[in-house]
């Protein structure tokens, strides 16, 4: 839609074909996305049960939500999972990309191998890792059968570390994509920059850290958005690996929303929870979008 180059006069009839072609998408965005969101927020102030009904109860649903230990546990888990997942997938992804960028042999093979897990759905990933982390026939069993009898690696059945078991699976699945994005970014850096750095005698790690990474800012931003949206909606991975257990140790907000909307037949409560999720995303995204796009669109 905004495909006019900056600086030119804004005309309603410029690129008319393109504008007509984008009408269905605009319509979808307005009605389905924005409309659906507004509808959800409105109904989160009602006492809707199985079916939506407009009986407003003020902030009752939110009061109950924040008094529910399971919701609090979900938020904490999301914070741990989210921050670690962000840091690790960016670091590991970038390191892998930098290593692949050293003009090694069989680059295609390695890239394919590392990207492969991304082709699996979260449900499959979750099941695979549920088996791998199962003490009776997974990693622990394997190491013990090699002779290390006291070896213990049992994250999914331990309340205090279960979220890290999920993190491992999440990283295994998602890092490949981050690596590919980073690799594309690295390839986009002009050879001459490297040559200039070499002439100046700057060590390689410094070139990466102070020259290449700042130049890759757009790639990082894209990657960040992709990872972050994946984090907020993490659901299937948890369902497949632990179904939220043991206890509530691996519950996540999206699962709370689903359970209360459908299983507990309490739409109001589910809407309140999903509105809180939306709010969290807005708090992160709005300032960022403002910084990223706000300044640039101003016509001088």
């Amino acid at each position, binding site marked *: 839609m905004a495909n006019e180059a900056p600086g030119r006069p804004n005309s309603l009839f410029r690129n008319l074909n393109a504008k007509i072609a984008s009408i269905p998408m605009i319509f979808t965005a307005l009605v389905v996305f924005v409309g659906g969101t507004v509808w959800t927020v409105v109904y989160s102030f009602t006492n809707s049960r199985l079916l939506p009904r407009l009986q407003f109860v003020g902030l009752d649903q939110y009061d109950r939500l924040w008094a529910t230990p399971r919701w609090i546990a979900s938020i904490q888990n999301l914070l741990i999972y989210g921050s670690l997942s962000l840091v690790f997938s960016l670091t590991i992804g970038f390191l892998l990309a930098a290593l692949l960028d050293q003009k090694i042999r069989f680059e295609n093979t390695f890239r394919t191998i590392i990207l492969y897990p991304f082709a699996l759905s979260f449900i499959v990933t979750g099941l695979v890792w549920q088996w791998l982390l199962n003490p009776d026939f997974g990693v622990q069993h394997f190491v013990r059968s090699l002779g290390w009898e006291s070896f213990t690696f049992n994250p999914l059945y331990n309340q205090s570390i279960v979220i890290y078991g999920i993190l491992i699976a999440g990283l295994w699945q998602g890092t490949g994509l981050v690596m590919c994005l980073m690799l594309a970014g690295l390839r986009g850096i002009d050879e001459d920059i490297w040559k200039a750095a070499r002439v100046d005698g700057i060590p390689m790690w410094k070139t990466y850290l102070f020259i290449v990474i700042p130049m890759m800012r757009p790639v990082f931003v894209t990657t960040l958005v992709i990872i972050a949206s994946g984090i907020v909606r993490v659901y299937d991975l948890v369902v497949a690996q632990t179904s939220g257990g043991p206890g509530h140790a691996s519950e996540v907000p999206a699962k709370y929303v689903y359970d209360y909307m*459908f299983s507990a037949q309490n739409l109001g409560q589910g809407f309140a929870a999903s509105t809180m999720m939306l709010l969290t995303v807005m708090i992160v995204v709005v300032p960022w979008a403002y910084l990223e796009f706000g300044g640039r669109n101003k016509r001088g």
Partner: protein
Amino acid sequence: MNSFKALIAASTVLGTVGLAQATDLEVTHWWTSGGEAAAVAELAKAFDATGNKWIDGAIAGGGNTARPVFISRITGGDPMGATQFNHGRQAEELVQAGLMRDFTELAEKEGWKNFIRPVSLLDGCTVDGKVYCVPINIHSWQWLWLSHKAFADAGVPVPKNWDEFVAAAPALEKAGKIPLAMGGQAWQRTGAFNVLIPAIAGKETYLKVYQDKDEAAAAGPEIAKVFKAADDARRMAAKSNVQDWNQATNLVITGQAGGQIMGDWAQGEFQVAGQVAGKDYSCLPGLGVNELISVGGDAFYFPKLKDPDKTAAQEVLASVMLSPETQVAFNLKKGSVPVRGDVDLNAANDCMKKGLEILAKGNTMPDPPRLNTEDTNNQLNDLFVEFFATPSMTPEEAQKRYAEIIANAD
């Protein structure tokens, strides 16, 4: 025309040679374990015999997984021919929204009131004086299943009640057995607790808490005793790390676990495994303390459909489900008690007879799905999943939260 077809359809069931045309009717349910599947096959057989066709729509994973699917199909405008629910409040709003078919006419014509027993079962199907569902079986939760093999291996006699069972737990553990098998799914945790209430605290307290939503009772000393018992159960089940109820039952069948608190549907599993009540396993209604069973069960609801053929077939199915032959065949396989008082149950085994006796004495109470909304049940599930998985959570702490849930319930 429509009622004419229905008449023909109904007459088929009543024994006359019928002309009803073959109609496919999709029936959704969550019966997928061995014993359950065998029971469903009986229903399908009986329905197919009327010249219609049963399209099986089983959804694995238990009611909590299946119900959202049913509901979104009905509210989303893709209703099935008939669907299972536990009668009571689960489908309450669907009925109120006019999405379900009213069966009052058929019920009066066939005289459901006269043979459905206990009558309270039909009340669970009735909203504003109209009948909206067909009860198909009576299930009760209050059973303790005990493996004779496990106790023989541990060298202790098979317990006669809950207290003896708790006392026998150390011996079982010493013999390498799990004293109490319990699946990790939330409904099983809550279910076990709800069984402990009438057994330990009595029917009065049970009704005060769930029917009257009496917060004081929920926070009181009687329920405190129940939480103590739940604490015992938690210790005894600590090593049980299966998920599904039938996996837990299987631990009891194979003698790896001493016992399991589970509804009478577990009976079907023992039967499939070829075990004999009284010889290979025992069942203690009301945990052997308080011989009191809750009357709940499964019922079929029929969404409103546009297709007149299917609408007629719905009525055929409803009649078939309640016919004496189907009732006996289905319930013997399922391990539940028929909803008809006038059928021959000589084929029933020991445990079922115990259940029938208690039923005849009228020692019954409504079960939680009848009294609580799914919202409340889910909050209880959340609490008990945490309680049973967190040894550091004290019974007092859990009771405080329990009382809060009851206070806020409607």
